[in-house]
């Protein structure tokens, strides 16, 4: 007869075995998430579960802000009003000029047969809080897939680009800021049209233009705007201004540091731009062509 311990001695597998099990489970998830991006569906379900707790946690702060806003002094409001009026006047003038310039540009584009630029839809969003991860630079917006935003859309404020929407949940979405180490944005020097790619500088809060030749025509004070070459960002949005150019003879590249134009760490409101520009498909590479030819030949040989 087989002897089994009475149930009150049964304690399941040994602690070390449990640790090994859960650690390997975590590592599998980590690899799936970091290397292959397979964990997005699990993440969205879990994020939906955590959403009510997050909203509840935001409640006291929102309430305090509401009360502070209610008691905002009249003088402050009047000053703000006057300033906004002045800015509206200034921007109205700019907008009129822009409209006529845009009409002229589209006319010229039609003349030379270039693809017409698609008007992008934009959606205002409020920045709820900064991302809860000290290892990256992100903010959370109050718009999600339910409101029609998509991952990949550029996000701007009233001055310029602040980042890219990298993850859209049901009701909120995550924006990776320009200063994040993993974000790159194609830019152009406004003065001479020199193209470059700006990378986030991480904790320094700056941008870095890598792979610029040591003799590249770039100097501090240059304005950088999006070049629009990637099809993600519309061209011409202000990105940053160059603050420092270090040219060292021992390196073949110049070290260019730029300060973001937009209020990346400050603003409360942002605009999510949607709709990608229409780009022609990539031309076939020589390898593809050869493979196609070979396939066609084989087909012919089989047929005859």
């Amino acid at each position: 007869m087989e002897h089994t311990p009475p149930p009150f001695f049964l304690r399941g597998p040994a602690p070390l075995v449990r640790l090994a099990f859960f650690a390997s489970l975590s590592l599998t998830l980590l690899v799936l998430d970091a290397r292959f991006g397979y964990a997005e569906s699990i993440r969205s379900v879990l994020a939906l579960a955590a959403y009510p707790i997050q909203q509840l946690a935001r409640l006291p702060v929102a309430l305090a802000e509401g009360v502070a806003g209610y008691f905002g002094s009249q003088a402050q409001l009047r000053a703000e009003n006057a300033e906004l009026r002045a800015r509206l006047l200034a921007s109205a003038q700019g907008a009129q000029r822009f409209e006529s310039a845009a009409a002229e540009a589209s006319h010229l584009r039609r003349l030379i047969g270039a693809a017409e630029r698609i008007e992008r839809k934009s959606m205002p969003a409020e920045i709820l809080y900064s991302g809860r991860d000290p290892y990256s630079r992100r903010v959370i917006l109050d718009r999600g897939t339910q409101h029609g935003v998509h991952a990949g859309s550029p996000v701007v404020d009233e001055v310029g680009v602040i980042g890219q929407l990298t993850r859209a949940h049901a009701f909120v979405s995550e924006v990776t800021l320009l200063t994040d180490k993993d974000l790159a944005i194609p830019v152009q020097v406004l003065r001479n049209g020199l193209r470059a790619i700006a990378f986030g500088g991480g904790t320094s809060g700056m941008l870095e233009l890598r792979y610029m030749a040591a003799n590249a025509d770039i100097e501090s004070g240059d304005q950088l705007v999006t070049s629009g070459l990637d099809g993600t960002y519309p061209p011409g949005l202000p990105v940053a201004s160059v603050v420092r150019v270090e040219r060292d003879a021992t390196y073949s590249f110049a070290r260019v540091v730029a300060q973001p134009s937009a209020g990346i760490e400050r603003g409360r409101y942002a605009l999510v731009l949607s709709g990608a520009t229409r780009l022609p498909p990539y031309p076939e590479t020589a390898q593809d062509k050869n493979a196609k030819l070979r396939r066609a030949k084989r087909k012919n040989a089989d047929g005859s």
Partner: protein
Amino acid sequence: MAADRPQAILLPVRAGTIAVSFGCALLLNFLPWPNLALAPDFVALTLAFWCVRQPRVVGLATAWGLGLLVDAGNGVLLGQHALAYSVLAFFAIALSRRILWFETWSQMLHVLLLLEGAQLVALAVRMAAGAEFPGWSLLVGPLAATLLWPVVAWLLLMPQRRPLDIDVNRPI
């Protein structure tokens, strides 16, 4: 539980108490903290407390599930906190028989080591995944959480201190 001090006999813990405490910890964790590196991780602290007090009830499965929830809520790599909390729970359970014999200050030293260890596990994971090093201020969060240990211990043991029906004639 120091040998020379009088000890109150505690009521058995209720599952509801543990669940509510974890809910509150999650809520506190999801508050919009201005500087995240300095904010204490309440979930890790509560988890360490229950793993020390109730190693048969709260274990690695709970730790792993909570870790996943925190990961998804924070929008970080899925599995980062799950791994850190699993390691934390393992060592807290391993130390559970030892920690309770000490005074509060010595308990806090143990807890500090546990929480810093969990933070370092998370740091190792993120560095391996290619993130940049956010600075040594990362180790301040666990320190702040450790300072909260006496408060948390007092608060979380409160439901077990008072009897269900107060009977003045009962000897204990």
